[in-house]
């Protein structure tokens, strides 16, 4: 299942990012990973459960794979979804539509995913899609 693990963090509990390999969401994933790394929380990426999975399903799948219960789904068409395993499947913690996604927004999603793990205050702004 592991496709592009950070060599340092492979095999240890972390935030899971679900993204299709070779897809065009690669820039967002780089930014998300930077946000998580700056907070010093491990992360890994996994493939989606099926070829037809949408962003919400990918995030749901990812958070179930994460020992921290925190997962991120990333698909250009659906944008970025940050999900916590205890939240209802249809009401993710953060959902940013594809047209609003950019490297800055993706980095903040990464930062906040890591801060959910650490229990520290989040970076909030009107446009970063928080519930």
């Amino acid at each position, binding site marked *: 299942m592991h496709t592009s693990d950070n060599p340092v963090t492979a095999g240890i509990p972390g935030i899971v990012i679900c993204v299709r390999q070779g897809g065009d969401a690669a820039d967002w994933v780089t930014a998300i990973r930077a946000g998580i790394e700056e907070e*010093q929380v491990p992360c890994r990426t996994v493939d989606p459960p099926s070829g037809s999975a949408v962003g919400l399903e990918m995030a749901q799948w990812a958070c179930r794979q994460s020992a921290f219960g925190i997962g991120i789904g990333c698909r250009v068409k659906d944008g970025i979804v940050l999900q916590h395993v205890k939240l209802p499947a249809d009401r993710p913690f953060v959902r940013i539509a594809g047209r609003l996604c950019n490297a800055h927004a993706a980095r903040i999603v990464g930062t906040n995913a890591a801060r959910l793990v650490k229990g520290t205050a989040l970076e909030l702004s009107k446009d970063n899609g928080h519930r």
Partner: protein
Amino acid sequence: MRRDKDIGKRPGKKDRPLLAAGVDIGNATTEAAVAVLADDGPVYKGSGMSQTTGIKGTCRNTAGIMSALAAALTASGHSLTDLDLICLNDAVPVMGDLSMSTISETVITESTMIGHDPSTPGGAGLGSGVTVPFSHLPHCTAAEQVIPVIPRRVSFEAAAEAINTAIARGIKVQGAVVQNNDGVLIANRIAGQIPIVDEVGRIEAVPLHMPAVVEVAPPGRRISRLCNPYGIAALLDLSPEETKKIAPVAVALIGNRSAVVIKTPTGDIAQRRIPAGKLTILGRRYDCRVDITEGAEKMMAAVERLQPLKNVFGEPGSAVGGMLSGIRRKLGRATGQSPDGISVGDIFAVDVVVPQKIAGGIADEIRLNKGIALAAMVETDKSMTAALVRRLEKMLPASIVVAGLETHSSLLGAATTPGVDRRLVVVDMGAGSVDAARFDRSGDIRSVHLAGAGDLTTLLIDSRLGLSDRGLAEAVKKCPAARVNDLFQIVLEDGSRRVFDKPLSGRLFGKTVLLPPEGEMLPLPRRIRLEQLSAVRKDAKKKVFVPNVIRALKRILPGGNLRSIENVVLIGGCAEDFELPEMLSEVLLNDFGIICGSGNIRGRMGPRNAVATGLIISFDRQRRKKHAHL
């Protein structure tokens, strides 16, 4: 003003008992009680409360009075037209106000330090070298010890690559100062470990080509070298004279996880002392001058020694002079008196520590500066009540009666608490003052009004936590707090947890929050820790109320002997506080053997409504006495 004898003689109202309201105007709250004056005593129908409008005792109070009355009348099923009379206090004798000023200030004349706590600095350790612009890094020569200063436009990948290239060329990169929140990202991508301080807002203000030292402590630790003046001296090769100059920098950096100190030729950081001034306290027999810098304790000792006070003046042109004249001006404006004619009857001072942004800092550095908070009590012109009565009479169909002294009413009201005896001692803790009253052996009332109560506590909390938001500080004072460190649970002040079935908002996550009795949790700025908030809140209450309640009791007891009484009933808004009555109980019982507890007016109102209730009782007694004579 209508006379007593006219009351109840209005057409159509003869055949039913009088409907009376007692109205108590406090510094923060106006309270009302409505009762039917039946043959066998008042039958209470309802009570109401509203925020006081304007300064206590002035005509602007009418709006607050009207809304408190409306609430009490609604609760009792009556309307304003049913009301026969309204009982007010006899003249509001005292008013309080407060002010605060810092007496020291930290100023950097040229940037010499960066001492802030970015959430995630990069790397760890200590490095010293010369600050260089990032673009200059490729031009540095081998063996040169440098600290690159990296602006926002440089990505972490580019920064790491350039540092790695420089290291490969033999340049000794000792650390880095970064504007973006990229410290860890850069540290993870370079060969070897160097300290990196990030999130430096005003990176353009960092002096370049100057000797500097960077220190980053590992997670959970604090810096150890840059907060020691001799540590800095060794690293930057300072002379004893220069070390003396750098000492305030070291002190300002204590407790940080990361810091940068830069040696500039003319740089200086100073803890400037603002001339705090002297306070002249005039007693009936002696006068005394106290220097504010000697602290609140010395000042309060002088105030107690000179009791009763005739007046208090601050040295013109000094911090304390400004504070006192500000209080006089404000009260003068409100009462229509000349500020010079207002005399200060009591003054209460508390030492405070105020977090202030350092002038000339680079990354919003904060330094704790000393300050002093003052509450003053002034005697007001008695004619103000008459003006208020005239205004109310024009607005209302009911008669307005001045039914007794506030202290007398508070004693009568507090006496309705189940379980208290007639020799009760009452301490009324309001927003502006702490008042104490008791009946002496001859039945006369001994009472005192002292400056400094709920509002001063709020001011202390506001300044110590650096909130600059009086409303939020008031909420901090009144509500227990918790920390949200999970989407579904909070940790309370005692360490216990409360679990929720719905996720908490991201707005609250990772923050210290207040838990109001009703409504949503209130988040505080992210830098405020739960333990810190809890300690500041308790300390503020203790600093204001413990000395003031003891001071008040001493003044009304024979020989100032607190051991001559056994019980104290606490009333007023602050007696409703969730922790203050217990705090006072502990001190009074342990130190003086006094049992104290919050009153429960009429057995159901808690410590509120004592004066409003007492006013009705007072009027009813006077009325009966008059009838008995007829």
